[in-house]
């Protein structure tokens, strides 16, 4: 599908390059091109450097923030800590609610409409409510992250559990599986095909909720969102761009490293996913 004839074309002329190195260079290449173009434009004075600082200035700012002021670590630490807490809560509660909804027909009929209504409310819209009910601090941000992920996970858990083959559950039951066995050994692994992609999706949602929550709640001091938001008051575009880059790169890293690995350790290992 993706240019089948051009995959694995890791050749430069007649030279063969290790595939991973080639992929890395291919990934970085556009950034280098655009970055140097940008740098040149600013050095020539064609673009206003306060509105759009050059990459070299951004590097300097990064160094400054990381080593001199040691601020970036704190921002990162607080953001990731909130994300972890909110996300784990969302996964646990989501899977539990999903299981209840999947196993009982009456409950499912009662709450499926409510669930789809709740999914359709943008997470960012919860934030004002949380601000006035839970205050302006950490609690609000973590709850926003939780709300950002939980409904999606619930939804996919229901779908996954319902797609588990009845034969399998019946077989397990006949062979004397207890309720816990049934849940942990049959239903949960069986529904992972549907849950895994939603875990990946909802990390994205949680990430968005985190940034929004940090920007809008006034009482917190640290966090990437806060860093960007506060830079506005000083018209400090450098800090903003460093923050945006950190958010973008971390988003990709979270998606690729963490969840790809999780997927490989479960779905692919158990042979539930055809290798792509």
């Amino acid at each position, binding site marked *: 599908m993706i240019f089948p004839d051009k995959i694995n074309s890791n050749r430069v002329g007649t030279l063969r390059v290790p595939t991973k190195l080639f992929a890395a260079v*291919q990934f970085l*290449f*556009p950034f280098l091109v655009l970055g140097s173009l940008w740098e040149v434009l600013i050095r020539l004075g064609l673009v206003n450097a306060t509105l759009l600082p050059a990459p070299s200035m951004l590097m300097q700012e990064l160094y400054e923030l990381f080593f001199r002021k040691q601020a970036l670590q704190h921002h990162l630490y607080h953001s990731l800590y909130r994300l972890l807490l909110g996300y784990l809560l969302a996964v646990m509660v989501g899977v539990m609610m999903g299981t209840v909804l999947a196993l009982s027909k009456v409950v499912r009929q009662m709450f499926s409409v409510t669930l789809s209504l709740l999914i359709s409310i943008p997470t960012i*819209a919860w934030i004002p*409510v949380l601000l006035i009910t839970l205050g302006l601090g950490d609690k609000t941000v973590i709850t926003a992250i939780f709300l950002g992920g939980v409904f999606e996970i619930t939804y996919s858990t229901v779908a996954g559990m319902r797609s588990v083959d009845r034969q399998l559950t019946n077989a397990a039951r006949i062979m004397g599986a207890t309720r816990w066995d049934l849940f942990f050994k049959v239903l949960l692994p069986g529904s992972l095909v549907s849950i895994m992609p939603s875990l990946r999706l909802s990390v994205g949602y949680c990430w968005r909720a985190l940034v929004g929550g940090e920007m809008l709640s006034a009482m917190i001091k640290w966090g990437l969102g806060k860093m960007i938001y506060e830079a506005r008051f000083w018209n400090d575009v450098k800090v903003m761009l460093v923050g945006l880059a950190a*958010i973008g790169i971390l988003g990709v890293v979270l998606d690729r490293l963490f969840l790809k690995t999780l997927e490989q350790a479960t779905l692919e290992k158990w042979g539930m996913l055809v290798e792509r």
Partner: protein
Amino acid sequence: MNYNRYLYPIIPLLGFFFCWEIAARFSLINTGLFPSPVTILNDLKELFYQEASGRSVLLTHLVVTLKRLFYAAIGGTLVGFIVGVCTGLSYRFYRFCDPIITVIMPIPGIAMAPLFIIWLGFGDVTIITAGAVAAFFPIAHNTSIGVRSIDRQLVRAAQIMGANKFSVLSQVYIPWSAVYLFTGIKLGLARCWRTVIAVEFIAAANWGLGYMIWDAAEYLNASIVYGGIILLAITFTLIEKGLINFFERATIVKWGMIRS
């Protein structure tokens, strides 16, 4: 037995609002933070009848937001579609754009808002730009996948029958990728909507649903906050169910690419 399907979903919703109303009536919960549903509706109604320069305040907020959403969605779709088709057709261009899109796509629209505020100032332009950027990525991504997934046989058949480059593009590639484009537009519109509301929180001058909610939250006017959020949910459900389904039926369903 069949009306259970319609009866059951209403029970928890009604029960929830009923309990809320009762609890608020008897002051079991703080009515400053959790005003009763009836109060919320009354306050919304009041806002609807309140007039500013001859127009209903609530309607103006709604219309301003919808206008911004409209311009942002149109802009994002056009640019996203063009970039998507280009990356779909040229492997080199795809290789060049893909890393950039991968890194910028997960950045939430609201995080870019402070940057746009500095570049473009407060108000409509900033909100529309942020919305358009948010809508751009899913649309470009999906269109690109659509164009790349084309059946080569169709392209060759068209070429053999004497189609030039332009008509191959407009009559083979674009209809083929319409299904993917619509998926992209659906995702993009949802992202655009979220971003427009979020950026209205921090960058709107004086109108828009997001501004209304944010302003009410700052004054601890809880009933308008809840009312606004209910309004948001209803509005977007209507847009998604009504508008998108209409366009789908007019194009890809009519062309027989998917069943309704």
